[in-house]
């Protein structure tokens, strides 16, 4: 078979056009042990991170290790992801590493660290397409939120109950099927009824902006990587209406 040499009139490799110059992660600490902790997060190596955390804990308080090593490392990861340098798996692996480090610190403190706030996440009843949710979970986690992960195929009542019990800053839903996304307005209605005006970010292949903005509380999530920014807004006190006008429309 004849194969061409030049394909420029057939397709364009836009990924090469926009390829982001390689960037090194920035240094986050002048302290060598803490920098080692951060580095382990940046490269997403759980075992390394555990070792570095243990080493750092010899000289530093658990809160110092968390606030000046693990979290700044993860912030670097978020920055690299935002700028298009990192791909999702690097974020997930970094988040796995950070969580392992935090677990060791918490063990030493004898109590759980304070998270920024809770976010309840779920995939709609009848729907097992949960990859979108899995990404959302990972990114929220990576950004310091406590994720109450209800998993896939979650009944309406269970979502509402979890919101009542956890009082999250935000709740998310994922649906990939036109037949399952109909659960979202039901959830929103029940939350309203209970006076829980929690911003409810809905996303997933089947879910359109038009649909989500047709019911109260609903904010449409186009890309999973919007989830942390949205959660920050909710944390800062924006209500669902503010958020909808910022992120949708």
């Amino acid at each position, binding site marked *: 078979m004849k194969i*061409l040499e030049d394909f420029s009139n*057939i*397709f*364009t490799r*836009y990924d090469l056009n926009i390829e982001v110059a390689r960037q090194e992660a920035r240094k986050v600490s002048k302290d060598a042990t803490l920098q080692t902790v951060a580095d382990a997060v940046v490269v997403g190596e759980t075992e390394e991170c555990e070792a570095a955390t243990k080493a750092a804990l010899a000289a530093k308080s658990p809160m110092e290790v968390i606030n000046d090593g693990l979290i700044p490392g993860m912030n670097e990861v978020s920055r690299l992801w935002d700028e298009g340098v990192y791909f999702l798996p690097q974020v997930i692996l970094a988040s796995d590493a950070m969580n392992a480090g935090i677990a060791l610190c918490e063990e030493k403190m004898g109590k759980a660290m304070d998270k920024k706030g809770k976010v309840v996440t779920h995939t709609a009843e009848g729907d097992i397409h949960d990859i979108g949710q899995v990404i959302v979970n990972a990114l929220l986690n990576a950004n310091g939120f406590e994720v109450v992960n209800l998993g896939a195929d979650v009944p309406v009542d269970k979502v509402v109950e979890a919101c009542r019990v956890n009082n999250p800053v935000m709740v998310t839903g994922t649906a990939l099927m036109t037949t399952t996304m109909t659960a979202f307005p039901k959830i929103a209605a029940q939350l309203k009824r209970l006076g829980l005006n929690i911003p409810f970010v809905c996303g997933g292949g089947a879910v359109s902006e038009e649909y989500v903005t047709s019911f109260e509380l609903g904010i449409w999530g186009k890309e999973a990587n919007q989830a942390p920014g949205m959660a920050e807004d909710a944390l800062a006190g924006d209500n669902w209406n503010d958020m909808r006008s910022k992120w949708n429309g």
Partner: protein
Amino acid sequence: MKLSSQMAYKSADEMMFGTAKKPVTTKRGIVLGGGHVVPEVVPHPRPGSEKTMKTLLREYERANGDALERCVIVGHPILQIENEHVFQMTHNPKWGGEIAAQTAKQMDEYLEKYGLKASYRATPADLRKPDMVNMRDSDYTREVLESFKECAKYADVVSIESMGGKEVFDHAIIRNDIAGLLFGQAVLGGRDMEWMWTQIVDICKKNNCIPGGDTNCSEANTAMFMAGGFISKDVPHTMAALSRAICVSRTLVAYECGATGPTKDCAYEDPIIKSITGVPISSEGKTSACAHSDLCGNVIAAVCDLWSNEAVEYHDMFGATTTAVFAEILGYDAAAMNAAIELGYQKEFQACLVNSDMYRGPHGFMLAPQNAWLIGKAVVDNNESLYARGKAAAVKCGELMLGDPKLKLTAFERESLQGYMKDMEKLPAKEEDFIDMCLKKYANVKGFDPAAYGL
């Protein structure tokens, strides 16, 4: 206006998709007809979005934006977007202009950010309904021309689907009346186009905009869709084919007035137009099934320079919104054709497209490059008048259909065609006489006003 007397191509063999004798270059440097096929996607706004300029701007921002984004996602190098005006966009000429401006800005951004090359065609609606308003002097007429002015500032290309002669055509098409088609399409349509296109070309010149071209959607396509597929009984396919041949006489007028192409996608007569004029043509076939069905889905691509979906209403599908979906499909269609060109296999590829439909039905038959060229030749060889060349096209088309035993016809289709051929024999030789005859014959057709055509 001088009627064309020469063929741009020496033979059908020379005609190929992707290349036109007279390529044109858009604002962002895309060469149309310059060696490659370009996808042209046509979004249509959802009902309700036309309520205010704001909602309509938003609708097009998304619909056009989704198409641009999808090209980046899958790697299509070039995209043309056409917006066919809905009533409100032309009725309020500023609206059409604002939408053109917004789209041009989106295209600049995509060029800057990703390197995607795009161009924009604005197609004002022809609001002049011959049976309702004076074609040459009505508010609607002024709005249409004003729309061209507003759009030409930002659009790369402008086009229109002009309506001249429709009132007579509508009467004739359901009465097996071939004289009525000749009068409505060739004579009235051609006269109206000359009046219209002189002005459009003028506006384009002042605005550095490309005057694309016209289409006989309102007549020949109506005939084609009424003839329909293999189970319709509204109009014989042989008559629809004659109607298509006849319309060349009027569609050609745009180029005789200075339009340069890219022609309008829904003009199925374009292969014939290309054979005569050498302008780049936009065609639509299988991938415009979202908008209508035809029996020449592949063959109509045989000599296209742009490849379109005609129109798709903006809404969600599983994979993405419709405009993204159709931009993706059209782009892949074009990619295969462009690969053929690069490989030097374009002749073989073209033969596959032609053999797919050349004998599927009369339209596929007459629009296959070899027959399209012959009909074009009949047009230029009989350029005494709009009437003469329209009739010559129809006669040639009829002869070809009756003369090729591979084109199977039902007894009914064949007999109808033989009848039209006889009817044409009996028509006057001279345009003046024909016009006199028709002015009497169609005097009572609802809405027909000779003055609207300078008669």
